[in-house]
């Protein structure tokens, strides 16, 4: 199975080679979708983790033991298109290009396939037409 996970590293853990451990010890396939990691600062990674269910569960336990916070997204982003004013504010924070607004129409377009379900757009939307339909497992 595959799960989309957001990882928040405290500054002290930014140098920890977590991805290597996940691959070697838990035999997971890792696909980094978004990374914002800098030395001595809180870091954020959004990754797709694929592998056997029990290995994934063990890996999440391990991540938690390292003091790294995780969120598992198993929901989807919904867009109330009929209420949208197509201002484009959400596109300013979308890390994956799932939300775009471009010439010539300047209509907002949402590509579900590209969405990381990171949720940044939800609060950036001034008319509150983006929602997360999710059951989130927090670590």
């Amino acid at each position, binding site marked *: 199975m595959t799960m989309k996970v957001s990882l928040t590293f405290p500054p002290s853990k930014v140098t920890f080679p977590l991805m290597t451990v996940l691959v070697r010890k838990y035999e997971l396939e890792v696909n980094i979708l978004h990374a914002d990691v800098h030395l001595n600062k809180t870091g954020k990674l959004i990754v797709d983790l694929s592998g056997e269910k029990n290995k994934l569960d063990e890996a999440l336990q391990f991540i938690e033991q390292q003091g790294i916070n995780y969120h598992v997204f198993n929901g989807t982003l919904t867009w109330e298109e009929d209420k949208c*004013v197509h*201002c*484009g*504010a959400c596109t300013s924070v979308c890390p994956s290009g799932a939300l775009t607004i*471009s010439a010539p129409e300047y209509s907002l377009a949402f590509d579900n396939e590209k969405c990381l379900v990171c949720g940044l757009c939800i609060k950036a939307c*001034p*008319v*509150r037409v983006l929602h997360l339909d999710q059951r989130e497992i927090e670590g």
Partner: protein
Amino acid sequence: MPVKTIDEINQKISEGKAIVVTAEEMAEIVQENGPKKSARMVDVVTTGTFSPMCSSGAFINFGHSAPPIRMTRVWLNDVMAYAGIAAVDAYIGATELSESRGMAYGGAHVIQDFIDGKDIQLYAESYGTDCYPRKSITTTINKNNVNQAYMFNPRNCYQNYPAGTNSTDKTIYTYMGTLLPRFGNVTYCTSGQLSPLLNDPQYRTIGIGTRVFLGGAQGYIAFEGTQHDPGQERMPNGTPVNLAGTLALIGDMKKMSSQYIRAAVYEKYGTTLFVGVGIPIPILDEDMAEKTGITDKDIYTTIVDKSGQTTFSQRVSYQELRSGSVTIQGRKVPTAPLSSMKKAREIAQELKQQIQAGEFLLTNPVEYLPNHQKRLNKLDIRGD
């Protein structure tokens, strides 16, 4: 140089013969035919904008109860309205926040709910007087049971606006949206080539008394807007590269539509109101044809650091901003709009159709807007 007067254009509108185009259509016409010929071809150019405009609100007269109350403090859906005027008059401002719901609901939402015809809870208090003995009142109001309800926006339609970015290591939440750390993005807010005051940059036809499309109703320019500052640096085509002109607008809120007025929340900043405005520009002569022929490549703004931590400043054209990215310090940075171009176009089209149908006539300004060099005053701090 004069080609036609506003009265002559109105005559054509009444006869259904006026040639009306949007500012984007005009840009193509001018490019193809030049300003001189275009001035003879086109009578009216319509503009439009749909942007968050904080300096917006509405006066409402609630009518008198029996016994009457001289309201001193007023809440609408738990949002405080200013009541320091006559007995049952109040002003609800777009950015006032709910006492119970905070930033999730504000004056802007009260305005949108009112326009949508919803019932709004009114609670008012008073100290009671001999002529107004009642000391409190709880009731509901809506657009059918109040007397006047008119939007009066002290500052709308900023002629231009600086684009925002963030130099710091942390995400900042501003009225220019969410700005990502280390120059992670740039936001900008204008309808550019479709924007009212960028198509009449020296306020030759847009003045006090001008009839405008305001939130779906016909409104008027009441005065220069607050912070009107025509003395900003300008390009040779007359457009400013920074804030510059503003308009104070007034219009009947009962006739507005939430298609063109929408409440908004900017994360960790507060509430504001998307206001849809369209202004018709009469093509009096070659100069007005040339001015309305501009496109985003001719209009510039300044990218500034909204964190206030640096004096970073970079001039950029709206064509570059609209391309989706700009280069800052050698790095490609994504750009995003905050003003809806799609809605601005809808407004310019709607106004065009109303003029073509003879439902919307043009006006001579009663008075021109200040167009001389002046600078804004600063607020000195004289206390602790």
